[in-house]
């Protein structure tokens, strides 16, 4: 398994690259009024309108700074595409399933927190894309039976 490592606050997280379509430079987002703070807005990716989530804002409450190393990670969300704005998404970490240690605690409000990989550079927590959005937000961004 190959994890795409990024940072939120001073913590490091990883996304399974099997779920990643592409890592792109951050795109200009069209903001959505009255949406939660961590919904960065809509971006046009290869002719498709893709909702973008600011992962730093979701995980730490602070928006990702617009640096060169802040990148737009396009992931598969079911059969749709979701954009994740991730800070310092510049490296990968290879590991096997056995290296991942299950979380000893369970945070009900954050079902996307997965097992933890401990390597030489510290701890990397795996983020499960499928659990990233609460039902209400998911319904808002990907309305069932909606267009496309």
């Amino acid at each position, binding site marked *: 398994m*190959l994890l*795409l490592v990024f940072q939120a606050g001073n913590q490091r997280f990883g996304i399974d*690259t*099997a779920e*990643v379509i592409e*890592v792109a430079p951050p795109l200009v987002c069209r903001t959505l009024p009255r949406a939660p703070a961590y919904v960065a807005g809509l971006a046009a990716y290869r002719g498709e309108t893709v909702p973008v989530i600011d992962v730093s804002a979701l995980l730490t409450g602070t928006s990702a700074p617009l640096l*060169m190393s802040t990148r737009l990670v396009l992931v598969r969300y079911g059969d749709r595409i979701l954009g994740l704005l991730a800070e310092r998404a*510049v*490296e990968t970490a290879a590991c096997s399933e056995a290296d991942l240690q299950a979380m000893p605690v369970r945070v009900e409000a954050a079902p996307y927190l997965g097992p933890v990989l401990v390597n030489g550079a510290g701890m990397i927590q795996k983020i499960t894309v499928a659990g990233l959005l609460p039902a209400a937000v998911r319904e808002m961004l990907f309305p069932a039976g909606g267009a496309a």
Partner: protein
Amino acid sequence: MKALLARFPIAYKLFAASTVFSAPITLLLIFVVAQFNSGIHTARMEFEGTLRLEPLHRIAADLRLHQRLSYLRLKGDTRGETQREEAARRIDQALAGAGVPDLAARWRQLRAAPPAAPAENEAAHRQLSAAVAQLAREQGNASALVLDPELASYYLGQLVVVLLPQAQETIADGQLLANQAALDQRLTAREAVRFVVYADALDSNWLPEVREAGETSLRAAGSQGAGRSLKLNVAPLLSRYQTELAGYAEAMRGASAADVSGAGARAAQAGDELWSTSVAELRSLLEARISHLSWMRSGALLLGLLAMLVAGTVQTLVSFSISRPLGEVVSLAADVAAGRLKAARARLQNQTVREMLAFHGARDEMYLVVRAISDMTANLDTLLAQVGRAGGQVALSATRIAAAVRQMEGTVSEQAASTNQVNATSKEIFASVQELARTMAQVSRVALEATASASGGISNLDQIHSTMRSLLAAGEALSATLDTVAEKARNVDEVITAITRVANRTNLLSLNAAIEAERAGDSAGGFSVVAIEIRRLADQTAVAALDIEKLVQEMQGAVREGVAGVDRYTAGMRASSGAVDALSEGLGLVIDKTRNLGPAFETVNQGMQLQSQGAGQIAESMTHLRDAAQQTRESLAEFRSVAEHLHEAVDGLVAEVGRFSE
């Protein structure tokens, strides 16, 4: 042996095995039939023996009659002449058809020349009787009558061949003696003794033996068919014969000639009847045995042949049930092995195979094999479809990777161009700094001269003044040069920003390459290594760019300090110039001022040193940067070759899969 067996189809081998098994069974059947045949043959022989015994028996009886009547005729009693002639004729007829020329010749001799004396008559008849008895015994032996395998017929044969004829002989001897006694009208002591001897012989020898044989035979006979008839017919005759024989023996002991004669005739008749009945019963026993054995033989033969026929049919059916589906299975397996899946699927649709597949719960291995091959073909289909899809995906990934590599090569070239630009710029900076150093040396020298001049005296004031002006001009030139340096440094800053952007782009591309390589799986194992390597180089580039940025900032700081120093120096110069112009402050002040220039020069000099060092470090960093770019380019070439290999492998895989979907 294995190789030899492998040369023949299974049906042939089954046939060979059944043939091998049928050989001993056939042999056994032949033995059984031969055994039955031998039993039947023996019984037939015995049957024919009884047929031959009858005339001999009659000849013996007639001979005894003829002897007795011949004796009476010799003694002058001719009452029995007609009876004698009849007996003689019967003997003639019997001997004529009996096929015993020696015996017939001796009888003809007796007939042609009848003996004149009673003793001769007795001797001649006894000889003939003995020959006939001998013949009868030989007949019994030859036809195996005395060796019969069954108890009832064995004892009956014993009775007929051995015991009864001898007993009859003894009875006849008693009758002859009674005749003699009747003719002589008296009974001599010698004759009385012979009567007692005959009676003893009958009583204690023949009677028990006949009884023993007859009763054993009756006991051994079965209670059905021929055995039942034997019991019904022979038992009363046997008991009557015993009674008559006992009566005869009693009469002989009583020694009354008339009594003896009558009892003898009765006993002889009872014996005759017993003999005839026994022979008849013996025949019916033998006939029953022959028919029983024939029936058994037919039964055994029929059963054996039927068993072999059934075994043959079953073997043929089994052979068919194996060889026909096996042929289908072999063709199926050959189709699958050769990659003709379409042909294999068509074959799975044919009648025989469909029937086999439709039969659930079969435990016949052939059915199981056909089902397994059907499942295997279906699974192979699914697998091939999956492999085809996976191949397509990998090919897509490979194409994307190749595109990413091309893009990366472009950015690396861009980076190399930027690097060259930086290099040129830093060389220019170096040249500017060199120039600055030279100017500074000049300024220093002029300052020293100025000091000397100042020390020289007021007379040199004009000279000092002009020198001051040139110093001022040099300071201004220095300031202008420093501005140029600051300008160049800004250029370096822009280039550094460009390099950082390129490094960032390279990092992004290598990330995507690593993701694609992960998606391509094990076949792209080389990619991920190269992707990580490129990312490492990009990071190094970024670090080097950061270093350069820091150095340039330091250099700019130094330049700013230099400018400040030069400004201070210029201000000093202006002040000096004013002082010189005024001359009111006095020469000492001028000298002090001039002396104050020393530390300022020192500061400027230090700035110059820093700049020079900075430029050298920039050049060194640029060399590192160029090396990194070169390595990046090499890695990219390797990356591209790996991508081409992947493409070739995928093409091979797709071709291989395509071969199966014919």
